[in-house]
């Protein structure tokens, strides 16, 4: 006797109807790399699993009206294999390459990654820096949630019980920019981040800085951005900036690293990431995907 019922509706209309009916006892399934494991290991319970793989159009990955639309069905492999992503959204591309391994990236979706909302979500810092929005739908209609308001805590999002994410929307940047994502793990193979940092630098010297794995949720550090804006980053953070960062992040000690080590690495990796982003903005070097650690 199985523990849940399984449905694979063909339309979003049917999905939102089921969500209205079952609310928290329904779970939406796409790649299942997180969900199926949690169901199998009895970490979560569901009365019904709603598989949305049959819904047409969820694998869309294209620019529409100056916004990139990443459909809820787009896998990390699709992003890694996309020339459009490499060219125009290189940090989302770069961070997608660091997610788990090929066998998981073939199945795991970037939408699932942010909906799981683990503090170490690799895709989050790049999406935060690009001011992405999460497009959610329910029987009440559609709404857009700025990615900064989306993560509310470990494994918690601002998505309502009866909502489904349809896509992630990322505005295009017109003009020159450079960015980078540095993920530090315990070894080079598949691992969760001990610290992850993404930065972005535009031609007019505006910076974006976001972290993952160093707090209860992925976060942006706007205070530091504001102090750096307009200036050429010289390669080292001054004491004021370091203090702000250490005040903003709140890492824990766990099996992957100690709190103290993570704090130190927040500073080191940020310097390296900013340097790489600035250099990529100017001359495209080091190439995206190159090891920056």
């Amino acid at each position: 006797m199985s523990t849940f019922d399984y449905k694979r509706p063909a339309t979003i209309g049917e999905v939102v109807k089921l969500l209205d009916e079952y609310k928290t006892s329904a779970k939406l399934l796409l790649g299942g790399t997180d969900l199926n494991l949690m169901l199998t290991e009895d970490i979560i319970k569901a009365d019904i699993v709603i598989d949305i793989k049959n819904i047409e159009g969820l694998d869309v990955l294209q620019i529409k009206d100056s916004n990139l639309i990443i459909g809820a069905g787009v896998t990390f492999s699709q992003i890694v294999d996309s020339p459009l992503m490499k060219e125009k959204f290189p940090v989302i591309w770069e961070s997608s390459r660091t997610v788990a391994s090929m066998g998981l990236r073939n199945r795991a979706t970037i939408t699932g990654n942010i909906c799981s909302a683990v503090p170490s979500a690799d895709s989050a810092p790049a999406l935060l820096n690009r001011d992405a929005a999460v497009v959610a739908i329910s029987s009440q209609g559609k709404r857009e949630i700025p990615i900064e308001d989306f993560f509310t805590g470990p494994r918690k999002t601002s998505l309502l019980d009866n909502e489904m994410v349809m896509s992630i929307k990322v505005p295009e940047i017109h003009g020159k920019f450079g960015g980078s994502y540095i993920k530090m793990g315990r070894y080079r193979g598949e691992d969760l981040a001990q610290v992850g940092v993404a930065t972005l630098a535009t031609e007019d010297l505006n910076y974006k800085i976001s972290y993952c794995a160093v707090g209860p949720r992925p976060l942006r550090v706007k205070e530091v951005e504001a102090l750096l804006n307009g200036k050429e980053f010289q390669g080292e953070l001054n004491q004021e900036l370091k203090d702000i960062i250490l005040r903003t992040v709140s890492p824990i000690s766990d099996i992957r690293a100690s709190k103290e080590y993570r704090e130190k690495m927040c500073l080191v990796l940020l310097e390296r990431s900013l340097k790489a982003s600035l250099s990529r903005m100017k001359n495209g070097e080091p190439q995206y995907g190159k090891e920056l650690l």
Partner: protein
Amino acid sequence: MKKEIIFKLNDEMVSVTVDSDELLLDVLRDKFGLKSPKRSCGRGECGACSVLLNGKSVRSCIIFAVEVAGQEIITFEGLQKEGMTDLQKSFLEHNSFQCGFCTSGVTITATEFLQKNPKPTVKEIKEALAGNLCRCTGYSSIVDAIYDYTKKKGE
């Protein structure tokens, strides 16, 4: 809840009745007798249970069998239907494996990877295999065999 599913398995249409929480890995092993996908970590991390789903390597231990209705699955048994592949022969020549538990997963992953990237660098091979754990060999004999195979094929 019992469901009947139909899917393509190693080039044949098959149908089977499964519970909605039954894992693809268990269905392949216990209902179809295909023992090449191994249960090892059971959490999608080690790659021993890899199969091809519509040509892409996936972890059968974290996929419910109901999800593959209407899809195409190829296991290691399916890869070598016509006898040993050249890639397998290269593994054999290089004495790539010892206990054999990771063999089918590595072969599945390498098969997909080489279709996408027929002339990889050693670094790219290592990256592609990062999700397939082997506790016997230290990987060099596996990587060598794949690299050697691509070189010979290019000649």
